């Protein structure tokens, strides 16, 4: 009844793609024969070296600051741009198209590419990493918020025009309260992503706990690596909790 002959082709194609992808990625479960090695390797991670905790916390703070500044500046710049990138508030069509294209351009460049360019130009350290995170988040938040704006209820906007408010103000004042909880929700998600990004940026010299993790790993200090990882996990979980707390307070 629901099995059509055409489905055979679909499933065959799907199987083919899975097979090809496995070939390309050298996907091979038989490699787990040496699973013992992994256990042996992981056993070097313990016991954790807690004497390093103060330094690790200091670096974590730097990572948090990087992620926060990068994503917050991204929001600050992305929010006004999102109004120009939404059909219902852009005003002129060329503003809408220009902003859209601009936002997808910055969004299409991965943070790591921004990072590599900026770190070369500005030198090692967290500052270029903040900028890299910021640029990417302008693109991402600008697009996400512009979609919230386009989906917002046009009624209040009309009412604000009817009381005689200026057009730009009518849009801003009626739309922002509607989308605010979702803006925050998106922002906190991006903040969380920015923490992970700043770890990767640390690997290429962007500072913070990412750089420490990378250095510890490369110098075989596995008892430090394990503590780095633990602290990173705790931070991500804490930020997630904080984010949902703020969101619940706002809604």
């Amino acid at each position, binding site marked *: 009844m629901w099995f059509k002959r055409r489905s055979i082709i679909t499933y065959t194609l799907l199987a083919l793609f899975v097979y090809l992808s496995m070939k390309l990625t050298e996907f091979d479960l038989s490699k787990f024969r040496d699973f013992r090695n992994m256990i042996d390797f992981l056993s070097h991670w313990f016991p954790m070296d807690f004497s390093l905790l103060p330094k690790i916390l200091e670096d974590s703070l730097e990572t948090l600051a990087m992620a926060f500044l990068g994503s917050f500046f991204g929001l600050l710049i992305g929010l006004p741009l999102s109004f120009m990138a939404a059909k219902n508030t852009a005003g002129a069509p060329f503003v809408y198209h220009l902003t859209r294209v601009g936002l997808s351009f910055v969004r299409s460049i991965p943070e790591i590419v921004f990072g590599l360019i900026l770190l070369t130009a500005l030198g090692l350290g967290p500052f270029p990493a903040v900028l890299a995170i910021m640029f990417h988040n302008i693109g991402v938040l600008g697009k996400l918020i512009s979609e919230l704006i386009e989906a917002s209820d046009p009624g*209040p906007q009309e009412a604000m*025009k009817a*009381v005689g408010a200026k057009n730009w103000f009518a849009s801003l004042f009626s739309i922002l309260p509607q989308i605010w909880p979702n803006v925050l929700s998106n922002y906190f998600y991006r903040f969380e992503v920015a923490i992970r990004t700043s770890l990767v940026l640390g690997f290429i010299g962007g500072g913070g706990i990412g750089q420490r993790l990378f250095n510890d790993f490369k110098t075989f200090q596995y008892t430090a690596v394990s503590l780095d990882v633990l602290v990173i996990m705790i931070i991500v979980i804490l930020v997630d909790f904080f984010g949902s707390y703020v969101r619940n307070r706002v809604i």
Partner: protein
Amino acid sequence: MLEIRNVTVRYPSMKDNALNSINLTFHEGDFICVLGKSGAGKSTLIRCLNGLQKPASGEIVWDGLPLSTLHEEQLQKVRREMGMIFQHFNLVPRLTVFQNVLTGMFGYRSSFKNLIGWFTSEEKSLAKQVIQEVGLTDFMDRRVEHLSGGQKQRVGIARALLQQPRVLLGDEPVASLDPGTSDRIFSLLKEMHHRHKLQTIINVHDVQLAKRYATRIIALKEGEVIFDGKPEQFTDDMYVHTYDASGYSERPYTLTT
């Protein structure tokens, strides 16, 4: 005085004109109800009056000023003299009753003051006064989404009143309310009409309500005025003509095909 001269409105998505060369004059002191089927052009008519909808041709004239000749800033000054209430209330969500009512003053203040929400104590007491007039004093600090439909429309009315308007426009303000609440909203509107000397122009579906409260009824059909007169002149025949209904033996036209 508010005048509609030869106004035609066309929507790109529609074949027929939403309004077809309409001429109407609204006099001060009238409480006007506009009747007509859905799609007859009632909303378009109301939205033309304060320039939310621009006519394809013809002219809306307010106090001798043709609206099409005004630039944005002058149009905003006209709009603040015309309060407007809506079917879906169109309150700003997540703000309180008090905050929503205060927005009625936005047309008189600078955008900067509006943005930071700075109001003088005089402005605040004016807002409290209109909230009292619509009977919502006990709900002042309640968020608008926690109110009932009737209460939301009272907020809408208070917001419009704070504009100190000369005209009150209503785009189906009771269409999503139950009959009892609709009647109470209309009697409030009538009271405000008298007290604030408002020229009131409202769209309704409920003919009984229109006949009970209006001093003049206008009926639209397919973008044209088919009736303009006193409520008692709006006969049953006129009702049938306006709504293509024949009382209790209404025939669904889809069956004839």
